[in-house]
């Protein structure tokens, strides 16, 4: 088990190092002066523009040797300093991002976990049941082929614009100030539901299909046939198949994390939901490069943490990793 986690942690450490290096490299080696390009489009007042130019040139540290620039970047990063946002000048990037993170997590975590759980249950139930299989399969494939934002757009159009049941944009009603009151919490929930639902549905389709396909493989495996030939009840065989099929689905969850996060970003954009995705859109429209780079690092760190949690879950589910046999490496 120690070897398993040691290996995983090494991979995550290297990944983080590579990601930070990419984050540092790209602005420096792309053609053109990033500071000038960024400021010229940001339409600021001349005096603040000048102050910013001096600040960023200093921060980019373009006058010191390249290895020194790289080291400075790391020192600033480890102090939690990601620069200052242009779009929300003079707030630091870290502050701006931290305000958005709770909203993104509130969407991502329930949508991911619930869709994984429900999809697995449903897929396992539908497998090898003629009628369900023939309806679930096409629906599942269509759902998983749907671009996240389009499902969001459709839900927003049908349930908000046409039916008027849910609000179309924002994290809470524009008439309210954030507070710990029931009205505010209710407003939060109403605004949360549609983006959550679209994330959930796309994920659900994918997991249901994955589980259905895995169960069919497992039911064709030797141990299933053996159990059946012993006269074990069908339920029991399916239960064993389900437990075995769950492991690759867990690996699949780790593999899908990047896609799910990307899905959450665009869903937030559709609903102008004040999470990271909405920030990224604003940052792109305002040429706020520091905010984008900060968001990149936040996403990387989040995905690495989530990967680690999946690893822990894997150890809990798969006894082989605990007893020292190889598994899930």
């Amino acid at each position, binding site marked *: 088990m120690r070897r398993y986690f040691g290996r995983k942690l090494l991979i995550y450490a290297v990944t983080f190092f590579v990601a930070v290096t990419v984050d540092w490299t790209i602005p420096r080696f792309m053609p053109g002066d990033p500071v000038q390009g960024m400021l010229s489009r940001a339409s600021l007042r001349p005096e603040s523009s000048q102050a910013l130019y001096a600040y960023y040139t200093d921060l980019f540290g373009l006058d010191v040797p390249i290895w020194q620039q790289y080291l400075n970047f790391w020192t600033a990063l480890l102090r939690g300093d990601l620069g200052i946002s242009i779009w929300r000048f003079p707030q630091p990037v870290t502050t701006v991002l931290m305000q958005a993170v709770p909203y993104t997590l509130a969407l991502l975590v329930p949508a991911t976990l619930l869709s994984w759980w429900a999809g697995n249950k449903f897929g396992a139930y539908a497998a090898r049941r003629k009628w369900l299989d023939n309806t679930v399969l096409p629906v599942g494939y269509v759902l998983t082929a749907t671009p996240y934002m*389009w499902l969001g757009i459709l839900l927003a159009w049908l349930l908000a614009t046409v039916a008027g049941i849910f609000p179309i944009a924002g994290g809470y009603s524009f008439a309210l100030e954030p507070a710990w009151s029931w009205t505010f919490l209710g407003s939060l929930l109403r605004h949360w539901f549609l983006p959550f639902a679209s994330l959930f549905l796309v994920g659900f389709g994918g997991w249901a299909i994955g589980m259905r396909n895995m169960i069919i493989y497992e039911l064709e495996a030797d141990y299933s046939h053996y159990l059946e030939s012993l006269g074990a009840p069908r339920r029991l065989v399916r239960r064993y198949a389900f437990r075995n099929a769950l492991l690759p689905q867990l*690996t699949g969850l780790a593999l899908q994390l*990047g896609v799910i996060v990307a899905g959450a970003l665009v869903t937030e954009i559709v609903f102008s939901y004040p999470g990271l995705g909405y920030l*990224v859109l604003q940052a792109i429209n305002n040429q706020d490069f520091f905010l984008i780079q900060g968001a990149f690092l936040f996403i990387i760190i989040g995905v690495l943490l989530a990967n680690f949690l999946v690893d822990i879950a894997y150890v809990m589910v798969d006894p082989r990793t605990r007893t020292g046999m190889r598994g899930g490496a």
Partner: protein
Amino acid sequence: MTVSDQEELVAAAPAAPAVTAAPVTSMRASREALHFARRNRKLVAGLGVVLLFLVVAAVGPLLADHGPNEYVGPPAQRPSSQYWFGTTMFGQDVFAQFTHGLRSTFLVGLLGGGLAALIGMLIGFTAGYRGGAVDEALNMVTNVVLVIPTLAVLLIIATYLRVRGVVPEAIFIGLFSWPWVARAIRAQTFSLRSRDFVDLARLSGASGRKIIFREIAPNMSSYLFMTFILLFGSSVLIAATLDFIGLGPTEGISLGLMMNNAVLWSALPLGMWWWFVPPGLGITVIVGALYIMNVGLDEVFNPKLREM
């Protein structure tokens, strides 16, 4: 092959097939595959839909005498006999945008998916066949790229590009979406390389490259083809996501960019459904048809899955 490897390769894809390892005489096998392929409803239907959209992408733009971004008509028109899919807020023809966007979609899928398949195969075959230190090193690279979210990298690359085109976008997508393929192919190569027929080829003095391309790859050709289809689909989806965030092509049009424009210019509260329904529907139907086609292919190549 360890248990976990096997699991990984199945988990990696919505419908990953088991490898058909026996070296079969290819003539008979392909005739048999064709026999089952023609009778497989999923495969035929999926292929039909994809081909239909391919025709629309090829012919559609020729029907209009204007470009996709030209201002040709009155703004915000509902679909009519003159503008089949209506017009945008600025009086652009949605049908022209849609058909041009379809071209971008197919281009991104082909180029991005193709490049990813190529890199994944190269790394997977090398790691699986060579083993040892080469395998360790390639595995490390694969795992690192696997953990980094593709979209996040594309995000910061695209941000710093002044001019963005569909082709560079496809190439960048291909460069970052190969890892699961490399892993799956590595695992399968691993299981094939100790087979008798591979040993025989090695004994007869064939080079490593020759063994990979002559002995190992043909035995997983169906798998490779299905992998490419999955990569095609995922490239299309990634491109749509990137375009929707606002990092789409600066010239030209794509389906993701159409949705981005529609949302940015309030098509949602105004209820201009003809602007945002076609592009998303196009992507969903194409990618969905590809996935269903893959299930069909899986059944054709894997007798265990055929419905009785």
